[in-house]
Structure formats: structure tokens, C-alpha cells
């Protein structure tokens, strides 16, 4: 017991490493190697089976200066991320707040809203192709009730990405789950105090709920940003493998997959992946730097 006091600080540091040790081992064992390999191979003409010659920066040069589809795919992806991330975040918060009230049948409601998030796979995408059918689909039918003449969704290059965003909004239950978990940490005494002060529901949400769930909003934004950049399968299925009208669904990863597994230009695809990495990494770092301005960690309240 006495020895514990000896060099407290250094020991603390060691304990920290012990805690993250499983991750470090896993990283070195399973992740670091393949990542390093893909970085090295991005400077080669690697085609998986027969060649891997060093080509310098040629893949990168070609991507940035010669490949129009690279820019198309990057633009499509940025468009998708720019809309889907804020919309799904707001949608998830909104739902979680609604479902955190005292209403009859709460358990059912929660399950219903959560359900689409666990439905995955090709069947769901094909189902959405039916729902988005311009004339007999359910979506335009409902829009019609409100006197809105629905768009051509998956057939109009202007509307293909909104179609996918709409589908993503339907699967907002995963994010909702996160926020519900986070809302459990907000103590009821705060609300009671606010009520006595005569705060409206909106004020309570704005000044109590919202700050308390900022750590999870931060998490949600960062991870959906990362995830958003990786959209692929939805677009692949819903465009029948063509990339959609005028390549409007040719997302970054979609194009990369074509290069890697259709024409086996794996070195090129790996170069693509590292460019994507740099973009997402910069965006994430900006997020991390901005976080202290708006993310409220109760644990550090004293600072």
C-alpha cells in the first residue's frame, strides 16, 4: 500500500496504458499491418495477383489531375454528407426527445421507430425503389395528399441523392438509441428547478437537455461524417450497378470499389482511399478542435 504513493504520476500513466492495452494489441495485430500495406501499395500498380511495381505518386497525380470521375464521385459524396449528417442528427434528436416523454405505448413506439435501423440489406433497398416509384409509389402518394406533385426520385439526377437521404432518415433509429441513452444521464432535478422558474418546454430543451447531450451529438456527428463518406451499397443496388442517371449516385467508395474489384486496379483504389482518409481526417480534426466550444462534458465542468 505504501509503495503506491511512490511516483504517483508515472504509475498513473502506466495504468492508462494498461487500460488501452487491448486496443493497442488489436491495432498492432489486426489493423496496422493491412493499413500500412494499403498505404505502401497506393504508390504501386498493385493489382492483387500479378504486379506490384513502385510508380511513385502517379496514382495520386492521375486521380487529382486526370480523372473526371474522381471529382464526380467526390462531389456526389460531399453533397450526400453535407445533407445527410445534419438531417439525420436533427431527426434522431427530435425523435429521442419525443420518445423520452411520458406517453402511452412508449415501448411500442420506440421499437417501431428503431426497427428500420436494424433492417438491412438488399431487400430494403429494393423496397425503397418501389416506395419511390414516381407514380404508384407510396412516397409520392402521400405527398399527393398534401397537394405536392412528387419528383421523379431515382430517375432524376437532381433527386437521386435526396432519395438516398430520405431512406437514411427512415433508418434514424440507431442515432435515436444513442440519444435516448444519453438522455438518461440528465437528472430530473434540473428540470424540476427549471419548471419552478417557469421555463417553457422549449427553454428546458434548449438550456438543459441540449447541453447535456452534446457529448453524444459530437459522437454522432463525427461518426456519421465518417460513415457518410463511405456510402456504397445503397447506391450500388438502387442504381442497378450503373451509378445512377448521369453518374449521380457514383459515390466515392462506389467508384473505388469499381476500380478495386471490377478492373482490379487495386493500387489506384488504395490511393483513392488515402485521399479520402486525408479529407475525413482533416474534417474530424476540425470537429475535435471546435468541440470544446460547444461540447459540454459534465466531468470537466470545473475547468
Amino acid at each position: 500500500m505504501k509503495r503506491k504513493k511512490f511516483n504517483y504520476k508515472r504509475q498513473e500513466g502506466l495504468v492508462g496504458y494498461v487500460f488501452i492495452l487491448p486496443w493497442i494489441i488489436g491495432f498492432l495485430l489486426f489493423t496496422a499491418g493491412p493499413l500500412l500495406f494499403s498505404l505502401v501499395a497506393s504508390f504501386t500498380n498493385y493489382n492483387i495477383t500479378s504486379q506490384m511495381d513502385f510508380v511513385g505518386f502517379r496514382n495520386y497525380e492521375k486521380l487529382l489531375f486526370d480523372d473526371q470521375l474522381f471529382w464526380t464521385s467526390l462531389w456526389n459524396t460531399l453533397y450526400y454528407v453535407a445533407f445527410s449528417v445534419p438531417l439525420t442528427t436533427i431527426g434522431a434528436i427530435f425523435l429521442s426527445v419525443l420518445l423520452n416523454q411520458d406517453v402511452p405505448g412508449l415501448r411500442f413506439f420506440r421499437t417501431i421507430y428503431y426497427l428500420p435501423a436494424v433492417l438491412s440489406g438488399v431487400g430494403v433497398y429494393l423496397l425503397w425503389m418501389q416506395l419511390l416509384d414516381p407514380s404508384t409509389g407510396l412516397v409520392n402518394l402521400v405527398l399527393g395528399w398534401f397537394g405536392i406533385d412528387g419528383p421523379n426520385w431515382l430517375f432524376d439526377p437532381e433527386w437521386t441523392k435526396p432519395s438516398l437521404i430520405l431512406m437514411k432518415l427512415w433508418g434514424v433509429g440507431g442515432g435515436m438509441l444513442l440519444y435516448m441513452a444519453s438522455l438518461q444521464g440528465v437528472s430530473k432535478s434540473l428540470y424540476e428547478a427549471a419548471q419552478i422558474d417557469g421555463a417553457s418546454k422549449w427553454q428546458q430543451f434548449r438550456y438543459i437537455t441540449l447541453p447535456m447531450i452534446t457529448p453524444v451529438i459530437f459522437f454522432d456527428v463525427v461518426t456519421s461524417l465518417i460513415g457518410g463518406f463511405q456510402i456504397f451499397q445503397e447506391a450500388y443496388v438502387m442504381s442497378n450497378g450503373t451509378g445512377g442517371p448521369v453518374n449521380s449516385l457514383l459515390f466515392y467508395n462506389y467508384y473505388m470499389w469499381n476500380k478495386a474489384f471490377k478492373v482490379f486496379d487495386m493500387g489506384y483504389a488504395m490511393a483513392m482511399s488515402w485521399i479520402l482518409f486525408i479529407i475525413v481526417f482533416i474534417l474530424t480534426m476540425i470537429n475535435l478542435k471546435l468541440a470544446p466550444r460547444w461540447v459540454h462534458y459534465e466531468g470537466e465542468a470545473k475547468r
Partner: protein
Amino acid sequence: MKNMEENELFKKRLLFSLMAVLLVLSGCAGFQTGKENEVAAEADAEGKVVVDFWTFWGSEIRRPVIEKIVEDFNKSQDEIVVKHTFVPWGDIWTKELAAIAAGDPPDVVINDINATALRGQKKQAMNLSEFLEKDDISARFYPELWEATLYEGDSYGIPFNTDTRILYYNKDAFEEVGLNPEQPPKTWDELKEYAAKLDKKNGDTYERLGFYPLFGVNYDVWMLNGSGHNFVSPEGEVQIDTETNLETLNWLLEWKNHYGENVVNSVKSQIDSQQANPFFTGKLAMFVNTPTFYTQIRDYAPDLNFGVAMLPEKEEGSGHTSWGGGFVAEIPEGSSHPEEAWEFIKHLTDKEAQEYWAVKNYDNVANTEAAEAAAKSPDMPEKDQVVYQTAVDNMQNTLLTPFPLAAPDFPTLLNPEIDNVLLGKKTPEQALKDAQAAVEQLVEENKSK
């Protein structure tokens, strides 16, 4: 301090339960490394060689057929045991590629014929010329299919099955509007003329569409039908911006303008979702698809009175060129038993197995003799024979469009240009010109590699 003891206890329990988990795992099949499956173990005991055979045929229709073919082979000799594994469609090739990269691939895999030469070039599939020197089986197959398996003159996969595109038409609808149900359209002009007659409008909505060329197939089939050749020649010459293709594109655009965006999109979304098909219910009078589409009509719309025909030709004498694809059996590079794999492939593509596959699955096979025989097989119902015979006859008009090695992914550049034309955002002239330039650039780039 009691807490501390409890803590130690917890640590011990944690450790213990982890150990227990590991112990349980070691007894579980999924956690035994190097475990051989039953077939392999049995074969080993008898001194037989196991040939690992991967297909994507797992459905209740296909699976029994392929397994019967495998079983027949296994019974026919006593040195080789073929073990069939179902791997899901599409992803099977990702897995195959990973396995080749890891140096431990299966011995026979069914793969896409259009990429066979490309896989040969990349050394994913094994060069089969050595085996072909001993037993030349190339004459078994449609020449067009055989050609597609060649890279620098050597074959890298043996054709297994194939398909083509034919015209289905609704005989009752023909009769209704006074067309002879035994005389389907023969040219593009006739096609248009018949379609106009078959169109049935009720106010603003169509009760029946005569025909739309881009349901069921893409623009490339019609361009092939019109020109008789692929967009990029095997030598890397780009033939996109041609007079014929321009005419074809204008023709497609006329159809689009005839029905209008909304009608086309609505029906297309139904067809694309792979479920409801308006041809079944007479809402679409003519439809282009594969011969196996017949089985869907047979099963889902048995009362439909329909006929089949070759694709119409652009103008008289230009040829009823159709488009096809198919699958090959290949030996992945690094297979540990190529000799035995070859023995099995010979069995797989021989007349007997091919005919059995054709009849049982109602599928077009690569083996010419087997295809002819299947069309007349007593095991095939008479009704089925009609479509099958048409398909077999159509094979002589059928061209394949294997990925050109000079620009295997050129469609990603061409597709958006054609889309722009059909959306009215670009003139056909400009689009073809732009596509030609873009694909030429791609060919150039690939050359410099």
C-alpha cells in the same frame, strides 16, 4: 478493504470466465483450426484428391441440379472427389480474389465470362492451354463464347452457360389491334409501327404500352444490334462516335419522347425492382429479355398468350444482332489440384452434364450439341421447347461484349453521356463526341501503364 478483496475476486472471476469461454470454443466446430470437413476426411482416407468447387447456385432449383452433376462425376471415377460449396452470388468473386491473394484458392470457380480475359491478363485464372493441348474441347462451344475466354490466344475459362436477348410479345394484344400474332416485328420501323398500334390510352394514362426499348435491356444492346460491334475493339480502337450509333441514339430518344418521362420512369421502376412485371399482366405488349424470363412467365403468368422472336433489325439486312453473356468454369491461379480440376471441368462442360443442366434448369448452355439436344429433349415440356429453340437459334446472332482490356471500365464514362441525352440535357451528337473523347483518353492512360 472488503471491497478490495471483492475486487480481486472479480478479477479472478473475469479471468475464469474468459478461460471457460476459450474452453467452450475449442470444442466448437467453428473454432477448430485446420479441421477438415467430412468429405475431405473421407477422401483422404481413401487416398482421393479433393477438388474444391465454388458456385453461386444455392437455390432450391439450381442446387440439386449441380449437385447431381457433381455426384455423377464422383461416381464415375475413383481418384477425385469434387466438393461443391455454395457462395452467395456476386460476393463469391470477392472471396475468390481474396483466396487467390492468400494463395489458397478453390480449384474450380464459376465466373463471369466477360471478365475472363481480364482475369487471365491479371493472372487470377490459370492458363488452360496446357490442358487443351492434350484434350482440345474448344469445338464443343459456340465460337463466340470460346473467343471471349481467350487472352493472347490462350483460354482462361471453359464456357458453361450463356444467354441471349429475345423479343417477347403478347399475342392476344396483337390480335386485339388487328396485327397478325404469328408475325412479330422484323425491323425497328415495324417495331415502332406495331407499338403505336398496341398503345392503349385512357385519357392521359396508358392502359397498355406497346413497347419501350429500354425496359429489360440497356442502350448498349440496341447500339450493338444496330452496329454489330462493341464500343471498344479488342485492339483498343474506340468506336463510339459513329453514324450508326448516332442513328440508334436518336431512335431511342424518339421512343423516350413518344411516351414521356413520367410513363417511362414509372414502368421502369416496377421492372427494376425485380418484382411486378407489366408484361405478365398485358400492360406492356412487347418486352426484350433473356430466354430464362420464360420460366417467370410460366410460373407467374401461366395464362399469358405470348410469342417469342429474334430482336428486330435496324433496317432490312443489317442483322438481328443480339447480346449475350454467360459464365465459365475457371481454375484460379494457385489451385493445388489443377489436373483433377481439369478432369472435372471436362465433365461439367460435356454434353451429358450440359444437357441435364439445360433441361432441368431451363438455362442456355454453352455446349452446342447439348443445347440442340435440350431443345428436343423429351424431358422438356413442349411448351418450353418453343422458347428454348428460339433461344438456341438466336445464338448465331448473339454477340458478347467482354470487357475490353484497353478500357475495362469504359461504361462509367459512356453511361452518363447517354443519360444526359435521354434527359434532354445534351444533343446526341455532342454526347457521343464527348464520350468518344473520354474513352479514348482512358485507353491512352491504360496504355501508358
